[in-house]
Each structure stands twice: as C-alpha cells, then as structure tokens.
C-alpha cells in the first residue's frame, strides 16, 4: 500500500491526464468515424474548461454541475457552428474548424475581465479525483462500444464510406453528422472541465493549435475502427513523453519519430494494426 501511495503522489497528475486525454481521443474519434475532419476539439475543450472553472472558482458551484455545464456549453456552441460548417467536407472543414479554435482562443485572451486574459485563471480548486475521471471514461467508452455495434455505428461507418449512397438508403446523413459533431464537442468540453480541476491553472494558450493537432494525432494514431483505438491513442500520446524522459533534449525528436513509424506501418491506426498482428496465423 505504501508503494501505491508513493506512486500516486508522483504520478496522480499523469494518471488523471491520461484519462482526460482518452476522453479527448474519444471526442475526435466520433467525428473521424463518420468522415469529418474537424479540429475544433481544442476550442470545445477551452469552452468546457472556462465555463466549468468560472462556476467553481467564482460561485462555488459543486463539481458535478460544473462538469455538466462545461459539456453542455461546448455542445451548444457546436450545434450553432455545426449547422453551417458541416456543409463543408475534407480539408475545407478542417480549415473552418481550425479558424473556430483560434477565434475561441482569441476571445478568451481578450475577455480579460472574465477569463483573466493571457494570465489565465489561477488557484482552481483541485476537485477532480481518480473516481471522476475513471467514471467519465467508463461511461463514455461503454456508450461508444454499444453504439459502435448497433445500427447507429453501422450508419456512421456507411457515411464515412459513401455519403450519397447512405442518404439514398433513407438515412438522414446531415443529422447524423451534426449529432456526431455535437457529441464530440460535449466530450471535449467535459475533458476540458475535468482537466482544469486537477491542474490548478488554465490559460488560453493551452487550447491553441498545438493542442488541436495533439488531439487529432490521438485519434489518428489509435485508429477509428473501434473506440478502443481512441483509448490506445490517448494513452500512448500521454505516456510516450513520460517514457522518453531519459532521452533529454532528443525527447521530442524520438517522440515524433515513433509516431511517424506507427503511421507508416499501421496507417489505419494502432488498434487495427494490433488486430492484424493478433489474427495472423502462427507458424
């Protein structure tokens, strides 16, 4: 038990961050699975984080309510921007959502009275524990695994392969895409709200372009053929820099190198790659 205590005191932030990153990976998984290349999730994460923190910090709202408000705030914004932007596809959608992320960051930067501007918000109560993160990840993962095996999952796969054919099967493709986008935003908002309550401090620069790309990398590295891919991708992207701590200044180089190798040898993501290796008959 002593061992566990010392492990927890050193690595608690790492474990919690892995959990929220898995949530972020799941949030990008939903959109990628139906063929939407959206990089707005860092922006939704910021919306979730700031709205939840403002509640707990300024009004002392209990954590569960703040978390829910964070997720809903992100979902509402997604609904608003989703209707016009989801008419776009491919890189055009990526550009539009990238711009959205920047708009969110700049708005937070300039609303100094509320958000503290570039200095961010300090002294956030550390309300999130292991239970909150594990509970959120478990519920999200259960829902996604169930849906992936249902007609909802089948429809989403069909949309990613041929939107027009799916539409002509009598399925409302636009509605499905919008729901995926909004659910992804809600998850990213929840992840942001959770994350903010164990890091003491948030600032707009945490939710910029780099974060958007990092989230996308989690989804792509893990793969979109199953929600388990997001679990793998989120965990790996969090763990890799930790595991490479001994590499000193070469760390980012090796970190990037490993990710490139994964994509080269398993372009459909780690989960698909693992499946192929495991299914290969042994000689």
């Amino acid at each position, binding site marked *: 038990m002593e061992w566990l205590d010392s492990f927890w005191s050193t690595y608690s932030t790492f474990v919690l961050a892995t959990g929220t990153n898995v949530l972020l990976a799941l949030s990008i998984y939903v959109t990628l699975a139906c063929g939407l290349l959206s990089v707005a999730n860092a922006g939704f994460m910021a919306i979730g984080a700031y709205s939840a923190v403002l509640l707990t910090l300024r009004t002392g709202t209990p954590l569960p309510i703040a978390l829910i408000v964070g997720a809903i705030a992100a979902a509402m914004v997604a609904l608003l921007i989703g209707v016009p932007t989801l008419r776009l596809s491919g890189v055009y959608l990526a550009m539009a959502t990238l711009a959205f992320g920047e708009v969110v960051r700049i708005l937070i930067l300039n609303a100094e009275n509320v958000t503290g501007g570039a200095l961010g918000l300090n002294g956030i109560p550390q309300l999130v524990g292991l239970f909150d993160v594990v509970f959120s990840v478990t519920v999200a993962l259960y829902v996604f695994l169930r*849906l992936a095996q249902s007609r909802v999952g089948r429809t989403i796969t069909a949309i990613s392969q041929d939107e027009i054919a799916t539409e002509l099967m009598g399925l409302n493709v636009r509605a499905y895409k919008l729901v995926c986008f909004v659910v992804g935003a809600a998850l990213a908002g929840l992840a942001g709200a959770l994350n903010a309550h164990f890091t003491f401090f948030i600032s707009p620069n945490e939710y910029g372009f780099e974060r958007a790309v990092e989230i996308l990398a989690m989804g792509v590295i893990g793969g979109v053929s199953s929600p388990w891919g997001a679990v793998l991708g989120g965990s790996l992207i969090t763990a890799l820099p930790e595991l490479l701590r001994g590499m000193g200044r070469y760390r980012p180089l090796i970190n990037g190198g490993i990710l490139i190798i994964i994509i080269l040898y398993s372009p459909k993501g780690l989960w698909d790659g693992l499946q192929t290796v495991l299914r290969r008959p042994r000689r």
Partner: protein
Amino acid sequence: MLRLSSLSKDFGGLRVLDNFDLTIPSRGIFGLIGPNGAGKTTVFNLITGLLPPSSGSIEFAGERLNGLPPFMITRRGIARTFQNIRLFKEMTAEENVLVAMGDPQCGMLKALLPGAYKRVEDSERKSAGELLSRVRLSTKAHQRAGVLSYGEQRRLELARALATRPKLLLLDEPAAGMNAAEKQELMEEIEKLEATGLSILLIEHDMRFVMGICAEIAVLNFGRWIAQGSPVEIRAHPKVIEAYLGNNLREDS
C-alpha cells in the same frame, strides 16, 4: 404513381433536360432509353432528390417531392441502384443490407440496453438474410462487399435497394457489364420483383434486354422526350431510329 410534369434541368447555360413529362403506373416495368448524354441519369438524380429541378414538378403517390431531401424521398418509397456501383465496400454484404433496412425510429437509447437491442438486431438480420438469399448471396453474407465479383456486387446493390422497402425501384443500367447468361437471370429476377407488386423504372443500353422486359418505353434524346410506347412501337419509331442511327436523308442531300 410517379408523375414528372414539364421537368427541366439546367447546368449553367446547358439545358440537360427540357420539359420532360413521364407517368409511371403503380405496377409494371418501364424503360427509359436514349443515346449517351441524353439525360437519363439526370432524370434519376432529379427523382431521388440528388439534384434540384430547375422547373417542373415531381409527384409520387399524390405528393409533391420537389425540395425534399433525398433520404425523405427514399422513405416515401423510391429506391435506386447506381450506374457505377456504390456499395459500402469495407462492410460485409450483410451489413450493406442492414444499413438500408433501418427503422429510423429505432433510436440510440435502445442500443444501450443489450437485451432489448438484441431482439431488434436478430429480426433485422433475419430479414437481411432473406433478401440476400433472394439475390443468391446467402453464402457471401459475411464477405466484404469490395471483394465480391462484379455480378455479385450488382445483385447486392439490388438487395440493398430492396431493403428500404420501396414501392418504386429505379435501376440505372442494371445489366451493364453482364454476360448473356447473367442478363437472362437478371431479367427473370426483375420480372419476379414486378410480380411482388413493385413498379420498376430502368435505364438500359442493351436493347434486347429493354425490349424483352419492359411493358412500355420512353425515349430521350438531348434532354427531350422523343417517343413513348410499347417495345414494338419504339423499335419501328422513325425518330428513335434517327436518334440512334442518324438520318439517312440528311446525309444524301
């Protein structure tokens, strides 16, 4: 059952369909023919809502379809296959059919409860199996659609269209790329479908196929209606012969 009235479609300055009228009864096999580029597929795209008409109206079972999104038109009972096969290639044959069977009301909440959902899923798989056996694909149910042979993919597309429970079936060149034996089988299959009370409108270039199966044929040329009638009438129609073979007299003068 389906009525197109003075339907037109412009792409910029190009009029690809010009005041087209067509009425299709609620049963029977109807053919739409014409040389390449006559606007046949455009007619299908207008009926299914993939393209908005520039003018004119589309009525189905007494209801105006103009402006409805494609998925609503499918739910009203119009299904189609594509000239260039558009299956979900990475999914199995069975999954392709299952996607199309969707009871849209069967929502997400039910899927979260393993027990309740299993019953829905089981009954859907059963009807998907029946459809697959109807197009002789039972043994291929769990193969990826992309690895099926060309003829099998065409039949799977047919099964998938039927899974939406249509009243009117639009077939875009169903016999393209098939050999004589396969065409014969396909003709029998289409006749069987018609016997179940379906109305079928098909585009086809193979004249023997069209003449052999259709009760009535409409002919398009350069986006204009030029003739309509029974196979015998169409075969002898001077304008149709001119459209396909050119005009001898003009050449002489």
